[in-house]
């Protein structure tokens, strides 16, 4: 961050703009980048998911709007914006309108905690990862508010399912995070990434020593995101659409946007914890190899972000793959699975990590 900062100030000084202006605007740049990138990524994600589901099911997926269907989600978003915002009579108007906004905010917050490249973390606290966990659960508040305010029986049932599900899967998630924290000796996501930097490349990343934790975390994230096979809160064959049954138009779009940005954020989180974050899988970075000097160093930021996003897209691909293959779980099996299997396993994983740390000491510093 410092390096970019000096570059920026230098650039402004050349054009005789006072430094105070640079100090203020410098921090707006990453926010804007993140926001725009998020919108683009979400639009792309929806398209990618529909395309891939199409391929899994012997279809072509959307292919009418734009070349290769590339503008399909843009068209969908535009349609949603143009649609009438229906507010049913018996809803609690204030809460009904509030819920979609709350859904989207935490997704933005958590994206600021991710280290996209070595010096590019928007909010770099020492306890980054814990804050992530806290904020990543907040959307359940919005679901609770929206489901309750909708005054619809299906919404209410979807909400109840969602809350019990998030409660059940939050703990295994936190315990497997603790395993990683033990290995990395840090709660900072940037330092966790750096702890995975070793000569072994891919084998040095935490997915290998922490494979149980990786699996537990992956399953818990599926449940937190209401993704198949844990998509009970919005099981369309039972609950119509779950908590957002009554929502339409822009409000529905916000829920949708929130869901997909959380999917993206959680995939990023997972790749930071277990897949080496922004580290290159080859051990060396292409940009510093090919371009010497300043240009290569600037390019390095983008390359690191590229690796991180590539890894997260791999995780998203697996999530979509699972959706194409698995049916939905039964609600009580789902809770049983978490409390009686995932939670003990994740605690066991934590013990294993402590032992591993104790034995190897130096390797995972």
């Amino acid at each position, binding site marked *: 961050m410092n390096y970019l900062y000096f570059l920026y100030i230098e650039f402004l000084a050349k054009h005789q703009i006072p430094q105070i202006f640079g100090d203020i605007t410098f921090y707006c740049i990453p926010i804007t980048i993140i926001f725009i990138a998020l919108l683009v990524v979400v639009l792309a994600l929806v398209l990618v998911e529909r395309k891939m589901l199409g391929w899994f099911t012997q279809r072509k997926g959307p292919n009418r709007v734009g070349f290769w269907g590339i503008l399909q989600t843009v068209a969908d978003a535009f349609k949603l914006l143009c649609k009438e915002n229906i507010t049913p009579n018996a809803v609690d108007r204030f809460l009904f309108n509030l819920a979609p906004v709350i859904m989207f905010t935490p997704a933005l917050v958590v994206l600021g905690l991710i280290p996209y490249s070595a010096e590019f973390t928007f909010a770099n606290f020492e306890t980054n990862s814990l804050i992530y966990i806290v904020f990543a659960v907040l959307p359940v508040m919005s679901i609770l508010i929206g489901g309750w305010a909708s005054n619809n029986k299906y919404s209410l*049932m979807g909400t*109840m399912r969602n809350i019990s599900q998030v409660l059940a899967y939050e703990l295994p998630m936190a315990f497997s995070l603790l395993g990683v924290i033990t290995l990395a000796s840090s709660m900072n996501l940037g330092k966790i990434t750096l702890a995975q930097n070793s000569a072994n490349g891919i084998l040095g990343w935490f997915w290998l020593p922490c494979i149980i934790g990786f699996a537990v975390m992956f399953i818990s994230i599926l449940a937190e995101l209401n993704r198949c*096979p844990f998509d009970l809160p919005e099981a369309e064959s039972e609950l119509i659409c779950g908590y957002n049954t009554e929502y339409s138009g822009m409000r529905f779009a916000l829920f949708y946007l929130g869901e997909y940005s959380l999917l993206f954020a959680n995939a990023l989180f997972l790749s930071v914890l277990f897949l080496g974050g922004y580290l290159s899988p080859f051990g060396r970075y292409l940009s510093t190899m090919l371009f010497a000097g300043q240009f290569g160093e600037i390019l390095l930021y983008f390359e690191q972000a590229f690796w991180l996003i590539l890894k997260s897209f791999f995780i998203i691909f697996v999530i979509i793959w699972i959706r194409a293959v*698995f*049916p*939905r779980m039964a609600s009580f099996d789902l809770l049983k699975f978490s409390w009686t299997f995932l939670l003990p396993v994740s605690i066991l994983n934590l013990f294993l990590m402590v032992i591993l740390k104790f034995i190897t000491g130096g390797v995972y510093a």
Partner: protein
Amino acid sequence: MTNIETLKLNLGPQHPSTHGVLRLILELEGEKIISCKPDVGYLHRGMEKIAEKLTYIQYLPMVDRIDYLAGFFYSELLCENIEKALEIELSERVKAIRVLMLELNRIASHLLWIGAFLMDLGAVSPFFYTFRERELVLKYFEKVTGQRMMNNYFVFGGVRRDIFDLGDVKDFLKILKNKIKDYERIIDRNPIFKQRTIGKGILEPDIAFNDSITGVNLRASGVNLDFRTKHCLYKDYEFNPVVLNGKDSFSRYRARVLELTLSASIIEQTIEKLEQNGELKQTLIKPLGLKLPEGEYYSEIEAPRGLAGCYIKSTVEERPYRLKWRTGSYYAVNLLRKLLKGVYLNDAIAIAGSLDIILPEVDK
């Protein structure tokens, strides 16, 4: 102890899984169903009353719509009744053609059910896979009869025209056999699918008998009752009805998959017969001014969703005095009262789906 408030929930008619035609009035305690009251009639078209106003040949194109997924079976029933009344013997080739079409229709119907059932359970892909194979059957129907679903192919005394391109059917059977293995790989071995179907929706044979359940649902409860074994069309065919002892949703699913293979083997036998006797000999009944002798006629057949029957009372007029249909799904809907009691909502959809209820057949 305080009173526990229950939640009354109208599952349908405006609901994605009942798509406008069935209403289940559920009483819920949390997500547990205390009572279930099916409310049918949203798709009632007055099929039986209309019959009293139409001549037999005018009514014939309508009967395909009683069960749009198994139309051949219902036109077969009507034709059979009239052939019985006028005492007409069908030639071997006509019989073979009818069996071929009926069994292909059964395969198409079961394939659709497999997809829809998995869709009810929340799996999206199998729906498309089974539709892909069903498409081949419908393409063949279109080739021979000119229609994909409402075929109107059987007529009184025979079929509308001879069959051709049996190679298509052979190719289809080959594909189907491979694909059934694929289904087994993606569905049967799926742990979540097993968890959601094994031991769910237990249907005891005596309850099934008392509620007049027939067809695959009954056979999956361990009762060997297949009306094909008694039917005149199937006299010369060798087959063993699929009987499973599981009583649950899983065995109902398995039974349908096994029936695909069974139907395929019957079709193979018909193809042999069709290739042996080449010419179509049939004496079609002149439909204009057709009057049945006075009396009551009844015919029944094993349709994909259980026993289907057609009753006609004739008073020597051009129109039937009374016509009544017996369909399998009607009794299956009633069974929901018993099967859904005490289960949780998301099992309820799976159990209701496993019974293969088709609402046009219920409402008629």
